[in-house]
């Protein structure tokens, strides 16, 4: 198993409903990432389709195993592990907001978003079915867990993945921003509170890849970032601008911290009381 991994977060803008154009964009960014030695590359949530699809959702449906778009991405990825976001359709015609992990010439893992925000500006529950499982990604010794945006607001998921062996949580997101009185957007502040807490409480690396750009008058913040197992921000991409954030992370840092701070080892599911 490789202990040092160079990760890349592709903080891109996506064109709403334009899969072909978004595919071209992905191919360009995969090439850019290769030049910089990236081994794991993340794209944002629904990166191939755009986020606010509403009634365009069904027109974007893909079956990854037989999709020519996915085939092109697999070929372009080569030895790189690449996570993309898309509208996945299952055999029953149910649509999911999915993250697909491409690796070593094939589809290695599909994560279907578990928590679909349907409040405020969000309408996912109207168009998507919710996933019903989580698992580790069989890449580099099963130390990677993938979640999508709202999933991270439910802390039991990160904890379950960490208990099962995750040393890295990759979170892909399309998070709309808001402004207030602070010099960074409220969205960024809230997300960093959650990502830093999740990383620290599970003593694992956390990669948060958010998109940028505007859809229907609403902007996506960007500010993708990488959190160390101790909760510190290692690197952060800019606000509202496209960027490829690259860093090398060391999985041994997780082990070393867990010797000193054995939170995951100490976790107990046998405590009695209110469920």
């Amino acid at each position: 198993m490789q202990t040092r991994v160079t990760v890349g977060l592709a903080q891109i803008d996506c064109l709403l409903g334009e899969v072909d154009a978004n595919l071209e964009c992905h191919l360009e960014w995969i090439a850019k990432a290769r030049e910089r030695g990236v081994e794991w590359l993340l794209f944002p949530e629904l990166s191939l389709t755009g986020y606010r699809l509403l009634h365009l959702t069904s027109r974007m449906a893909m079956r990854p195993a037989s999709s020519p778009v996915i085939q092109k991405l697999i070929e372009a990825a080569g030895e790189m592990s690449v996570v993309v976001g898309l509208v996945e359709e299952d055999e029953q015609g149910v649509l999911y907001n999915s993250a697909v992990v491409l690796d070593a010439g094939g589809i290695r893992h599909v994560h279907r978003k578990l928590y679909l925000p349907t409040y405020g500006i969000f309408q996912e529950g109207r168009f998507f079915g919710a996933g019903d499982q989580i698992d580790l990604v069989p890449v580099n010794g099963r130390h990677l867990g993938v979640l999508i945006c709202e999933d991270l607001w439910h802390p039991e998921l990160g904890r379950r993945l960490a208990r099962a062996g995750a040393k890295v949580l990759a979170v892909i997101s399309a998070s709309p921003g808001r402004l207030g009185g602070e010099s960074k957007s409220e969205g960024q502040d809230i997300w960093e509170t959650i990502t830093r807490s999740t990383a620290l409480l599970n003593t694992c690396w956390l990669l948060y890849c958010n998109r940028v750009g505007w859809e229907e008058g609403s902007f996506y913040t960007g500010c993708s970032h990488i959190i160390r197992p101790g909760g510190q921000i290692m690197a952060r991409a800019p606000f509202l601008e496209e960027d490829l954030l690259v860093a090398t992370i060391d999985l041994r840092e997780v082990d070393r911290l867990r010797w000193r701070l054995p939170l995951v080892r100490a976790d107990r599911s046998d405590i009695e009381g209110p469920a």
Partner: protein
Amino acid sequence: MSTRQYVRDCLRLDPALAVTTLESFIRDAIQTAGAKGVAVGLSGGVDSALAAALATRALGADAVHALSLPYRTSNPDSAKDAASVAASLGLELRTIDISPMVDAYFERFENEADRVRMGNKMSRERMGILFDQAKKHGCLVLGTSNKTEILLGYSTIFGDNASSLNPLGDLYKQQVWQLSRHLGIPDEVVAKSPSADLWPGQTDEKELGLEYATADDVLFLMFDWGLSPDEVLELGYAAEAVEKITQFEKKNRFKRRLMLIARLSDSAINLDREIPRD
């Protein structure tokens, strides 16, 4: 801290971040539409001044077509202030007097019309010209309505409330003032009493019977936070103001949901089929 003070704090923006974000909004909307710039009417007031300033920062002065569209009874200070805004932004200002078009209609066909009807006609005449100028230059019409007036419905439907993109639509009036000061909009424009200038002596606060500061707070509490009018009263706001704001907001909702379509199928536009515009 009192709730009223907390509301004020919630309404305060980081001006630099807000300006950066709104510039990005304008650039993106223009690019998405494949347009060359914006057409904007400068009234001499603070809203249009801020919208024009943001567009100029986002696109450059050459891409901003600024128009002054006075009627013969307009306050001469309005045109003067529009000119000073344009000059401060390095914009060329074209003046088109709308009196002949507006007067032609009322003199020939409707000489009994009251001042509200005349004011509405002026507002729509201006917007008609802005859309034509936008077409001429391959541009979009830049909206200048703020959140306070949109929520109160203090606007002419398909007149000043029409536009292709509006960077100010989620800013309460106090926030418009805050950003305008930050961007160095001339003091006389920021400090003067807001007016639609549709008839002599008209001011927003006189016509509404409300101060903007109160309107902003109460709208924020009811619209953003979802408080009931009774809960707002408990915070010490004047009963008369809360009642007025509630009535305005309710009465004018139709102005912010354009196109009321009779639904006959299960695929009515917007109600059943929400197709994003981007």
